[in-house]
């Protein structure tokens, strides 16, 4: 057992956990942040994607102890003051989901993708979604949502600059 301390969605959390605890289990079972899903549990489907120190990672393939001292953001932490994140809003607007199971991971991956590549075409979006699997939609509306969100977010930045 070890004590891990990390900032999750802006809140400092500290717990004594088994060393073998995966980050996804810590988030879901200790912190009750069940928006982060476990799909394949083998690092392929991306339902468990969260941000650790600003970078998208698969929380099923990382121990909570590795995130000791880190800044973690989950799907519960992306909306601010009751306002959906532009990527969440775009998924709603473009109906980028059907059953919704993969959606938290898709959105966390999309936010990270737009951070790294503000200018995204549809082919690049599809390549960047390599590690996220959706079994319902065929991806078409997911790609449209991310494309729209990227355009909207870069437009905002241009105005702010």
């Amino acid at each position, binding site marked *: 057992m070890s004590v891990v301390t990390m900032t999750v969605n802006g809140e400092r959390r500290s717990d004594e956990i088994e*060393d*073998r605890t995966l980050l996804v289990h810590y988030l879901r079972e200790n912190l009750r942040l069940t928006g982060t899903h476990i799909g394949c549990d083998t*690092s392929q489907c991306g339902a468990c994607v969260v941000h650790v120190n600003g970078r998208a990672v698969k929380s099923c*393939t990382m121990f909570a102890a590795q995130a000791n001292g880190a800044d973690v953001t989950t799907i519960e932490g992306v909306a601010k003051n009751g306002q959906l994140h532009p990527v969440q809003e775009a998924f709603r607007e473009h109906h980028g989901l059907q059953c919704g199971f993969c959606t938290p991971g898709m959105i966390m991956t999309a936010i990270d993708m737009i951070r790294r590549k503000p200018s995204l075409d549809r082919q690049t979006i599809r390549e960047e979604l*390599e590690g996220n699997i959706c079994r319902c939609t065929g991806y078409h509306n997911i790609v449209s949502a991310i494309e729209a969100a990227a355009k909207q977010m870069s437009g905002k930045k241009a105005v702010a600059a």
Partner: protein
Amino acid sequence: MIPYPFTYHRAKSLAEAQSLLAASPDAKLLAGGQTLIAAMKLRLANPAALIDISGLGELSHIREEGGSLAIGAGTTHADVAASPIVQRAIPALAFLAEEIGDPAVRHMGTIGGSVANNDPAADYPAAVLALNATIKTTKRGIAADDFFTGMFSTALDESEIVTEIDFPRPDCAGYAKFRNPASRYAMAGAFVAKFGGGVRVAVTGAGSCVFRVPEMEAALARKFSPDAIASVAISPDGLNSDIHGSAEYRANLVTVMAKRAVAIALGQSH
């Protein structure tokens, strides 16, 4: 899936990692963990302890030194792919890093971990071998030709830690792989590097361990063009054969991928 219990240590320095490793023979080093954690979850690996070296600044750097490019063993695939230094010095290496796994995996996985693990279908071993890189460890420097000894095995001893990979800068280089459509691992991948003194060709994914192709190297040294190796037949003997492709199919893929890699090196395609 939950691994067997183990004790987690985060090393604060390379020296501490070495002493922890020496003190616990059943411990394993944890870098990005993108292979090791998966194996532990399947309970195929059962280390008594993990020594986390992922955060060590001593292992994370990219710099040009004379005619070579030195990459710290703890550098992630994402950082290699996005590095302007790598993109300028050896663009084929930045391209290779960008093609590994998916973005989330590339944020965690490291070059040192990939090389030390020596998965038969991993990408980095092909670059290390074709570029005639030197694998620097806490004990010595090991030439790529001596490093990869077989499936998942290397010349590293139990208490040795990879610290840096030094890549000589080639005149030009290219990497092409044919991905398994499901796993995305290379069914065959070829890295071709042209130096003043000759050409090196290394193949991953097709056999039990990365290997060089001397016949292609000789043909490309005479004439560096895709058609120079079009008639070099690879023997299927000893190549992988499974539900995804026969040894004969992979043997043919090696030639196809090597031709593409030469074309990429010449700037004829991407």
